């Protein structure tokens, strides 16, 4: 993965997830953060921190991004969510507009 096409998502604990830009842009919130004019730190370094989202949830979200891309390309599978995660995941998804 070339550096220009990736972004880094940082969880509350500091764990870093590096994913494709295309995948991350599925979140309207992330898209806004990365493309808004105004010289935000996020735009420059391609890094976004989420102090309220835990690593476990953030990992699941990244998995969702890739699953979504796969689905749009035709491979329609099921995305399994562990019940314990759902409440937090739902709130994170709401925040991220995804």
């Amino acid at each position: 993965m070339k550096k220009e096409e990736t972004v880094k998502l940082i969880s509350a604990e500091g764990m870093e997830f590096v994913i494709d830009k295309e995948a991350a842009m599925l979140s309207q919130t992330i898209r806004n953060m990365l493309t808004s004019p105004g010289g935000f730190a996020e735009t420059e370094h391609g890094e976004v921190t989420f102090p309220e989202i835990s690593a476990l949830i953030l990992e699941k979200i990244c998995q969702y991004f890739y699953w979504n891309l796969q689905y749009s390309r035709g491979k329609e599978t099921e995305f399994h969510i562990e019940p314990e995660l759902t409440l937090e995941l739902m709130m994170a998804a709401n925040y991220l507009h995804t």
Partner: protein
Amino acid sequence: MKGKSIAESEYIEKSERKDEIENVNRKRRFSREEKGKGKLVVETDLESEDESLVDVSFSDVELPAEEVKSPDEKLSKRSNRRTSGGRMERFRDAARRNASRFAYFNTREEEEENNNNLSVEAEREIPSVEEHIEEKVVEDWPGPFSTAMKIIRDRTANLNVRQGSSSSDQVPSVQIKWVPQKGKGKDGSKRLPPSLLDLSLRVLVDNADAIASLDHVPDAMRHKLCQMLCDSRQMNSNLLDLLLSGSPTEIRLRECSWLTEDQFSECFVKCDTSNLTVLQLDYCGQCLADYNIPSTLARSLNSLPALTTLSLTGAYRLSDAGLSVLVSSAPALRSVNLSQCSFLTHGAIEILASSLASVLLELFINDCQSIDAMLMLPSLKKLERLKVLSVAGLESVTDKFIKEIITARGDGMKELILSGCGKLTDSSLKIIAETCSSLRSLDIGNVPKLTDNSLGYLASGCRSLELLKLCRNTFSDDAIGAFLEISGEVLKELALNNVGKVGHNTALSLARRSRNLVSLDLSWCRNLTDEAMGLIVDSCLSLRVLKLFGCTQITDVFLYGHSNAKVEIIGLKLSPLLEHI
């Protein structure tokens, strides 16, 4: 006597005038009395019997709006209407000649006929004579609506001339040029992946029993969750406890029929309602009654200080007294929905007016059968800031009621819901159009007596109309087309559900004018072809939702040929039905 003859002469005048407009209706009018009686063509037999019964007694002329009557009853009513034999003779002859054409019995047409004549009767009740004359001269207005109508008619007439006398009975439809484009647009078989939010909500609903707490979940999420739980009948009192814990700000339960009285009392007795701004308990008839309000919701005189929105639909055991207790605890109410509370009387409106006259903005009293519109009028007029009024389904709503309330409060009115108020006629729409200049939303579905004149009034009066709902109305294709030519630019939502005459003129006007239209309901409009539909969808670029229930004439030519990628088409075979409820 005098009154009756005026009615009769107007009956003739009106019918003659209407002749100019629609040839087809002329013959029908003469045989109106026949049509309602039975489904067979054997009318002439009934008639000859009747002649012997000619009873020239003019009992009251009031003609109730009934559709189905026993033959005997109808015979006697008909005999009462016999006045000068000569005129009736002419009608009968014309009817005999045309009876065979009307062997097909159509309830809606009959309703139309009944109502066309009934509106004459209704007009008689309004004292001023000028109104009668005004009713008929909309066509002669030098206004944009009549100009638009003329253009549309000329267009159709030119088509007549060009096509020659190909089919004398049918009105030839205007040409619609639209070619389906292959490859572009939404591929019906490909579906968008569901959002993470939807996926998590679904899992949450499936595992609802395992939810331990709803703290920190924002209101919007709570509402979505409740909605899905109520829809799947999984909502229970444990979950309600979770919702009510802490100091909730908004509670929206769109369906409380599962909640028993005891459960309701248990849950709400310990609920801290001091921060509650929205309380929605729809279909709460089983659990809410006068006697458990003081112990639960209205525990003290100021127990609901922040409540601005209250919805207690279907509370069939709530009486005026119970409402009074509730309202005295909630002095800040701005929106009140008491639909289907069948026990409430006009006293309830008095209660609202006495404490909330200066704050109440929205009032919904759909289907409150015991509320008499005229009796509640004085109290209703006291609501100084009323912006939204819904009286759907109230039989006692008449032209007189509309006239009074609109004259008093029409200036500030933003939304009016009058669906199912079957007694209303064009004169009500005239007053609404003249007074309610800031009207944004209007629902006049299931008001069969309205004629094209109403659309004329709306077009010239309500310039900010963003939402218009029609359902089973009898407006003509020409009139709707003309209306859209003038008012189409501002419209965001339009429903033409079961407006059978919608056709190509409507389609053309929609395509030309409705730039901002987001939602369109053309269910049961069977005169629209694939081409017309394609033209509409490809031209209305803001369109996101198109409802086509019952449009069996639409084929894949349209579904796969249109090029609007953002529109969602609901109601045809491709979409799973229940997703959209």
